[in-house]
């Protein structure tokens, strides 16, 4: 049986905002929740309708070592940022 950890989701709604403000908001959140994000206790869910953000946010988050997943939901995007992969 796989044990499931309870993960807090920090919802970051930046719908209507554009870059670079979007990126700065997300970076701020990543800095704020760094410890919990890295330990896996928290996952940051960014909702944006600004297309450029789907490029700039994942690029920066990945450089910071996080695991990023982008999904298109109706008319906006969901960028999920969480605990990085464990290296073998």
């Amino acid at each position: 049986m796989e044990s499931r950890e309870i993960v807090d989701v920090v919802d970051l709604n930046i719908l209507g905002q554009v870059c670079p403000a979007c990126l700065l908001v997300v970076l701020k959140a990543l800095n704020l929740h760094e410890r919990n994000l890295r330990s896996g206790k928290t996952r940051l869910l960014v909702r944006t309708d600004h297309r450029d953000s789907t490029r700039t946010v994942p690029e920066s988050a990945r450089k910071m070592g996080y695991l990023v997943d982008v999904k298109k939901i109706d008319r906006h995007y969901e960028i999920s940022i969480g605990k990085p992969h464990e290296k073998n």
Partner: protein
Amino acid sequence: MKRTDSSISAIAEDDTESPCSCQDYVHYIREKTNQLLEVMGTTPLRPEELDDRALIEMDPIGIVADSFRQIIGTLNKTIDELTHTKNELQAIFDATGVGISIIDRDYTIERYNQKQRELLVDPNMSNIVGKFCYEVYSDRCSPICECPARESFATGKSTLVREIWKKGRCFQIISTPFSVSEDGVVEKVIEVSMEVTEKKIAEIAEKEMKEFCLSEKMKLATIIESLSEGLMVLDKDDRVISWNRAAEEMTHWLLAEMKDQPLTTLFPELGAALKTNSGKLQGVELTYKASDSEERVLSVNIGQLEGSDGKPIGKVLTFSDNTEQKKRTELYHHAEKLAAIGQLSAGVAHELNTPLGSVLGYARLLLKDKSLTAIQKEQASIIAEQAKKSSSIIQGLLRFARQTSREKKVLENCQLNDIIMGTRPLLETELTKRKIKLTTDLAPLEPTAADAQELEQVVLNLSMNAIQAIGSKGRIHIKTRQSGKHILMSIADNGPGIPEAIRSRIFDPFYTTKPVGEGTGLGLSICSGIIGDLGGTIDIDSHLEKGTTIRVLFHLATIEQKKSQKVAADTKVSSFVKAGEVT
């Protein structure tokens, strides 16, 4: 960070006191923020997007700086991991059991491991990095056509060269493209060298062993096929697996028909024997009748067939056809018996000859006595006639007994045709009386060395047999031919023929089909002896109700040849006698 935040807030609060310098600071902060955002890969801040106060309150430089801390932390971690991986790879590179080198497009060695050096590099050569691989590994001035690196550079694919010999060792070399430029050009290859000497030697030994086994198998198959004895191989359940040509010929079965059939289908008599004595048999005789031929006597041997572990895996059965040998043995015993009878007869005949001579002499004296009555004379005449007849029988016996004696022969150059024509008058009375027509077809013949009286006897005996076989009214045809150094005489009659059952016995002495008193049974055996002495044969071709043809075939010989043969035979007999004396 907190300190920085409060400093920026202080600048914002001091805005009224020193507007000029404050504006410069804000401008500076906006500029640096944009610079950092550019580094982060996004667009500069627009004034309408974030006014100065909001900019100061947001603290973008602090945010980006904090993000950089995370990025640098991640980079440091990645660098640590890469260093660790590199060390691991280096350890694997050095510790692997195969030789590895990295070669660039100019065939220059960039890196190599210790194993590669051990396998392919001259121990006296120092550092080989920067040298040409073909010089270092193959002592050549340029890469050869079979060079795997050359092939990989050309095709962009991995290349395997199966067999390269160096210093008495065999290698397999695999070249794999390693670094490929954006336009698809292979810039480097990894060459992996594996020593396969032991494997190669084992392969060569295995190949030689296979060839040896195949050659031995072929030899064995040829031997088995050329055996005159039948040979069968049986499995553990005594079923036929294979057999040879002789077995097919003897049993009149093809292997395809008998394969996997139990042996007892073929030889039911062996069923019980196979179950006893571990199935081993020696010299067992059994009778076998093939569907379309007469019964044969077979002598069978059976032995165990063992596998490499010594366990029985089947049986091998050999058999020979002893029918002819058995017949020959029977004939030999028969001939020995006849020889004994002949010797006995000769002794008896010799003893009877003298008193018979007296009987004949006195009968003839009586015939001259004029005082005898007619009846007495007739009786004396019968005595003389019967005594003479008895004497001629005895002469025949003696002649038969003497037929191997060469001393008494009178060799001369005989003309067979003349002898045949000479016997005609002697046969004429019988021929006329029985209304038998004798015709001849005599080809010119060379004279041959023989006893003329013996040849005359052969012609007379065979002709008289033909006359007696016909009985009355018929034809006899005598023909002679010469072919090279052989003479053929055939005497054909249109009599009733000789029944097949007695054909093999008519040459036996004392065997006759004539009524008692009419034949001695010695005629043909004497003829056979005379022709045998001439190195010839007598054959019979007889068909019931159609007639019989006797063919006499013998070699032409000169008197000198005959005499030398006699000397050789005498010498042999003499040596034999002397050897007998010694022992």
